[in-house]
């Protein structure tokens, strides 16, 4: 897809996220909005994972370590025909597979996540597996910035570096907020760039809400041979809806009817302006 098409998708995806959270009665609204552009570019231009090749071992992998923003994942998987919108509309209903964290019961989901600090180790294992077999596939994983306080993340980075996993692409959704407040106030993680470089990773920073910047940076992988790739995607939590952007309270807040209508109006206006 070209960048214009991707931008259009992002607006539509944001509408879907709002819609399924509103109708499902719960969801991680702001985090899903911060990472949706990343998932958009990955699933539409980078991963080449689709319902036809999903059961094959010989393909790229995507592990969403920040499992709580599952509404973003469900939205792109739905648009990529892993399941229907009717199925997705069962989100949070009794006995639906569409629950508040990724599960492999949902077609297209690679790994069950939700507890933080798990996905990177799993992605490292996948990347080592591909290296052992000399297969050309890559493993992409999305981490939250609050998640970086988990010690297991840093264990995994050591292994990624040791095994020279240039087929591993770690994306940090650096939106600067977590459930309690600003990451730098809850438990400071800066200087992040220096930390990752010191762990042997090759690091690039982009505007993680710019589909064109994301698309361009993914084309440059591997950044260096024999080094794991890491992208700090600087994003805005709640991106795209004025009254949700950068508001801590929207981490897991359900929009009221009035808020929902206002959000959809804003997005519809973006669509009109875009066209």
């Amino acid at each position, binding site marked *: 897809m070209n960048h214009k098409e991707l931008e259009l998708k992002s607006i539509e995806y944001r509408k879907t996220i709002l819609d399924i959270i509103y109708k499902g009665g719960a969801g991680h609204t702001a985090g899903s909005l911060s990472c949706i552009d990343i998932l958009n570019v990955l699933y539409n231009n980078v991963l080449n994972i689709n319902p036809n090749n999903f059961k094959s071992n010989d393909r790229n992998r995507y592990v969403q370590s920040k499992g709580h923003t599952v509404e973003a994942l469900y939205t792109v998987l739905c648009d990529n025909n892993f399941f229907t919108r009717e199925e997705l509309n069962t989100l949070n209903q009794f006995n639906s597979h569409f629950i508040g964290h990724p599960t492999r019961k949902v077609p297209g989901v690679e790994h069950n996540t*939700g507890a933080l600090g798990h996905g990177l180790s799993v992605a490292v294992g996948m990347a080592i597996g591909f290296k052992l077999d000399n297969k050309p596939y890559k493993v992409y994983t999305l981490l939250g910035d609050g998640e970086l306080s988990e010690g297991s993340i840093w264990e995994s980075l*050591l292994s990624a570096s040791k095994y020279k996993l240039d087929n591993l692409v770690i994306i940090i959704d650096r939106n600067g907020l977590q459930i309690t407040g600003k990451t730098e106030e809850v438990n400071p993680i800066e200087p992040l760039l220096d930390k990752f470089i010191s762990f042997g990773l090759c690091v690039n920073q982009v505007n993680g809400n710019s589909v064109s910047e994301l698309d361009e940076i993914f084309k440059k992988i591997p950044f260096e041979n024999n080094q794991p790739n890491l992208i700090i995607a600087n994003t805005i939590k709640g991106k795209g809806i004025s009254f949700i952007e950068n508001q801590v309270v929207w981490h897991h807040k359900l929009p009221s009817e009035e808020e929902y209508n206002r959000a959809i109006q804003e997005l519809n206006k973006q669509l009109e302006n875009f066209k």
Partner: protein
Amino acid sequence: MIQKANLEVFAETLLNLAKKDKEIVVVTSDSRGSGKLTQFGKELPDQIIEVGIAEQNLVGICAGLSAVGKKVFGVSPSSFLTARSLEQIKNDIAYSNHPVTLVGISAGVSYGQLGSTHHSIHDLAVLRTINNISIVVPSDNFETRESIKEAVNYTSPLFIRFGKKPMLKIHNESDEFKIGKGVKIREGKDILFVTTGETAQRALLASEILYKKNISCSIINMHTIKPFDNDLFLDCLSNVKVLITAEEHSENGGLGEKCSSIISQSRIKIPFKIIGFPDEYMVNGSQSDVLDYYNMSPEKLAKIAEDLLG
């Protein structure tokens, strides 16, 4: 007859299997030496992944390797593997349904004087509460070999734990072994011992003491704690007068309480004693000394059985 340590048999078996099957990958957490896998590392360097002292990462990497088609054995001291990494076992292996085999080495009180940080007397209890993981505690060299062979193509998550001391021979090579099927290793009419892992040999020796007193014992070795062989247990229970369970594990949540649960939900009434480690600050000593102290010497097992029989 004294045989090798189950640990050695595990390592030999896995090396032989891995030589023939390149999809087998072992993951260690600086546990290559304690897992007797040094030779494996020398002969098959491309089939061993070393993550350093990072058990959480070990389990996650095992899940990832499995997800891309590898037959994975994660090998780490049982204490750290099942406590430090419990959430990874729960989420990344069991819940995500990756058919990894996790091997808990130096299990129970194998570490002896190294103390409670290194003991794993919680592992059966915590893993019993987790959906979608089978638990195997082989008693002798035969059960260890057969469980590792079956593990290679086992289609769901599996945990196997054993110790590192030489073991008595319990089985003949022609015996049958299947994960989930307990084994009756002695047939008698007075006492039923239900054992798992290293307590099987102790019950066997106790049965010999009792035999001299004209007391006959059945012994079931429940090498598989989950799924539990209810049928065999209930079948054997109907033919004896008293029941004793013995496990190298806390009294809480292990073999004994599993048996207790089955009995209390049936109409059976039988004198019954659970022998394991009590909920207390543990005595210090070698594995053998600790087991003896907590009523698992053959003599004490025999005495308890005799008293229970009345």
